[in-house]
Each structure stands twice: as structure tokens, then as C-alpha cells.
């Protein structure tokens, strides 16, 4: 199973990862983050994550700290 680890404390709510994810697995959460905006969250109930890592590539804060790809 492919997945990512997201550190919400690092998220500055720029939402670049939301646009980047090809499977639309990253969305705004209900939690307010350090900039006063909603942070993002990763939800993958159907195991759709490809482990492609583009979310980590575009994140300017390294808030997506780990990406695992199913082999």
C-alpha cells in the first residue's frame, strides 16, 4: 500500500499539494494551522495513493515528510 506522512504543524496552507495530487487525496482539513487557515489532510480510504510523491515535490515546507510506494 502506498501512502504519505503529513506533518500538519509544518503546513502553511498554500494548498499547492491539493492541486498536485493526481488522485485528489489531499483536501483542506477542519484544523486551523500556523497561518490561521485550514491545514490540509491526506485521506485514502480506498488505497488509491500511487506513492508518486508529487505532493512532497511541490510542498515548500517539507510538511509531507515521508512518501512510501507499494512495490
Amino acid at each position: 500500500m502506498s501512502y504519505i506522512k503529513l506533518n500538519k504543524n509544518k503546513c502553511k496552507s498554500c494548498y499547492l499539494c491539493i492541486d498536485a495530487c493526481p488522485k485528489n487525496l489531499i483536501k483542506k482539513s477542519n484544523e486551523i494551522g500556523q497561518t490561521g487557515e485550514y491545514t490540509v489532510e491526506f485521506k485514502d480510504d480506498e488505497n488509491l495513493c500511487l506513492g508518486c510523491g508529487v505532493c512532497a515535490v511541490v510542498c515548500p515546507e517539507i510538511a509531507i515528510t515521508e512518501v512510501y510506494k507499494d512495490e
Partner: protein
Amino acid sequence: MQVFNIPRAIKQNSNFTFCPGCDHGVAIRLVAQIIDELKLQEKTIAVASSGCSVLLYDFLDVDCIESPHGRACAVATGIKRAHRALNNDRFVFTYQGDGDFASIGLAESMHSALRGENITAICINNTNYGMTGGQLGPTTTMGQITTTSPDGRNAHYHGFPIKTAEQIALCEGTSFSARAALYDVKNILSTKNIIKKAFQYQIEGLGFSFVEILSSCPTNWKLSPKDSHLKIQNELTKVYPLGIFKDVKND
């Protein structure tokens, strides 16, 4: 299989202090990844300068010195030459903004290129003086509104912007000069390859290597991070075309 992790060359528990969506964080992460891949952490001395780029030493886990505004290439010259005199082989790069590299420090930057100083300079071009709140800088494009060009940059009144990567490519001591951007995944990955190449040219002792990176400044551009990237893609790359302007291996 883990395909991404925080680079070893990023300080543990450090958080970037840039504005939301600013590309500085991406650029520094790429630099850290390349330092890891080329195993440079133990032999690197990085030179930060004034502006948003100054806090580099808070994020990169390598030896680092801050230079006075614009003097990063001169400071890097001193470090590289001194280590050579001490019979040390050290990797030295600067991380500067466009105001730092191409305005206040243009003499130091260009003469380092002309001397073929065996260092690498990375210049983050966000077309304004970001840290002071977005004033007209050396790379502000024609018509661009800043706090000191309220009606937009005007050739008669403000003069013209500098195309840094092309200018540095004209210097005979330059081994590599390129412009890259970070507005999408493809470009981020290609920027990484370009920085890596610039680093490798220093390691091979080929002379001054330079990468200009078109970078977003959502706060001062008054655009969302996403729209900032669209602006780079649709507008800035027309003024500042991406590409490699000098490569001693191919010329």
C-alpha cells in the same frame, strides 16, 4: 519502499520561515537533496546573503557563513581560495536573491564569473525585493507594479531589467549558466538536475557555475501560491526564458 524523506542536509526540527507558498523552501530542499546525493555535507561551506535568503543557515545542516549584502560571491571566493591554500578541497556555494546577486552585488558576482572562480552561485529571482516588502528590483519586469513602481515599471523612468543567466553566460570564466523554474513538478525536477549539474561542474573544477531560479513571491505579488505559479509559467518565462545558456561541456 520509501521514495521521499526529509533530506539529511536539512536541520532536524527546523521549519522554514518563508511566507506560505514561497518557492524558497522548494529550492532549499532541492539543494539539500543534492548535497545528500553527492555526499557533500561534510565538505560544504555555504554562503548566505542578505534578504529572504539570509536564514539559510537555520535550515541547512552544513557549515555556513552570512555575507554582507551582495558580497556572497566575494566571501565564497575567499573561502574557496583559502581552503585551497590550506590544501583542503571544499565545496562552496552561495544562495542569494536577485537583488543581492544582480543589483548590489553585481560587481562581485560578475567578477567571480570572469575569474572563473570555482564556486557555484544560486540566485533566486522573484522579480522584487521581497524581504523589505516588494520594491522594484533589478529583475522587476516591464509594467510590473511594486511598492516603488506604483504605476508599473517604465523604461524611461526606471530603466530595464537584467537577464542574469544570459549575462553570466557571457563571462569567459563561467562553466555553466542556466535558468530554471519551480512552478510545477516537471520544472522542479528539472531544476534539481540543473543545480546538480552546476554542483558537479564545481566538483570537476570547471569554473564558475550559476543557476538562476524563477521563484514565486505570493505575498508581494498579491497572488495566491497557485496563481503565482501560473504567472511564472505564463508571463515570467516569456521575459526570462528557461534553459541552459552556457555549458562548457557542450559548447
